[in-house]
């Protein structure tokens, strides 16, 4: 009985093999997804929703860096970061830096992350987002800002929670429609 439970919690090789193979993404599709994420980030919101809004650009960059790293290099992440900086009227280059850092982290851990299902990826994505926000805080502190409250990290939690949805929506157009086993 207990053996069975352990088996369930571990990665099932059969399940892993039966995972969907995704078609390679068109580079226009990558750019359109980044622009859509920027629009979501730019929508003006009120206080609580503002604190809870996940960084959609970071999520989309993470998705491409994990699933199709040949489509999204650090240069694209860097340019997206510059756009975020100009929109936030903050120091030019600090979002660019952290986006490059998450692309690097994703490139190191992508094989390990890919083994898990989307829901199981939540804690790992959460850790990556927390690292990203911590680097942002360090840069701001070096620039002479005050420490924000703990609610600053809520964005990482909400980002990790919406990760399966974002990843599912991004992968949906790339799934093969035909059944490979059909004759």
């Amino acid at each position: 009985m207990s053996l069975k439970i352990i088996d369930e919690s571990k990665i099932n090789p059969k399940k892993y093999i039966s995972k969907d193979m995704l078609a390679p993404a068109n580079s226009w599709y990558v750019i359109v997804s980044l622009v859509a994420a920027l629009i979501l980030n730019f929508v003006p919101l009120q206080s609580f929703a503002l604190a809870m809004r996940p960084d959609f650009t970071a999520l989309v960059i993470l998705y491409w860096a994990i699933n199709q790293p040949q489509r999204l290099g650090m240069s694209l992440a860097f340019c997206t970061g510059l756009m975020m900086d100009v929109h936030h009227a903050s120091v030019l280059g600090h979002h660019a830096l952290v986006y490059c850092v998450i692309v690097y982290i994703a490139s190191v851990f992508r094989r390990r992350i890919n083994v898990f299902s989307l829901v199981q990826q939540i804690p790992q994505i959460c850790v990556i987002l927390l690292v990203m926000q911590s680097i942002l805080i360090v840069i701001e502190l070096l620039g002479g800002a005050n420490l924000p409250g703990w609610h600053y990290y809520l964005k990482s939690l909400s980002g990790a929670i919406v990760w399966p949805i974002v990843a599912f929506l991004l992968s949906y157009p790339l799934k093969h429609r035909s059944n490979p086993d059909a004759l």
Partner: protein
Amino acid sequence: MDSTPQFFRHGPGPLARLLLFVLLSCLLMVEDLRFKVIPELRQAIAMIIYPIQQVALLPSEVHGTVMDFINSFHIIEENTYLREHYLRNSEKLLRLKALEAENTHLRKLLGAVNTIHAKTTAKAVMAEILYTPRDPFSHKITVNKGRQHGIQPGQIVIDYKGIIGQITRVYPLVSEVTLITDKDHSVPIQIVRNNIRTVISGTGKNNEIELRYLSVNTDIREGDLLATSGIGGVYPRGLPVAVVTGIKRHPSDNFAQITGTPVAGVDRNRQVLILSLSPALPTSPENLAEESSVESENN
């Protein structure tokens, strides 16, 4: 000697690429914080993201239009009320004009008219706040008037109660306002009750500003109104800035810790007024330049 051809072509490894980009962004940050050599870069990126920002603003605009439509049912009612109100106020306005005329007359008698510029020369442009950045670190807002509308850096932004901030960056169609609560922003002020001159600075916290470097024995009380002094020539004099809300005097410190709350709705309103630049003051003589440099820097 030829090296063996690679089976898979790779660029530099991920770590090398990361270091390259970290270096690049560090250079950008230093450039942006210290030297500001290439302001055109920011302008160019702002133009690129302008359409994206407009799309992001669409939902709130649609919401606004729908609300306007609903509100228009109340407008007729409101109009009659306002007309009545206007008539009642115009009587007060006439009295105010008479008082103003009397005041200028008295000033003439004092011989002070040459030193004080008439405040009515300043013109105001109304602007609407497009968005506030979600960054908790940056106390800046973006308004919908830019270089196309004749906005210049350094202009003062107010609402109907008092000062909100100052234009610091101008893009072709929008411009950025640094709020008075920003950590690096200071305003030369006077305490209205006893005319003590000093400088007030932001704290980087929402709705809080502080008076730094006032000695422990300064005559200041809670509830004192602080208004611009007009020194430095950037701010016109007499605009309300803040009310003192907290004073802590520790005998061991040289300076008292004085905090205040802005009079204007720094984080509330949707419409603001941008004042035109006040005429440049005569430059200070050489020997005074060093003494006044502290104050002019704060402006």
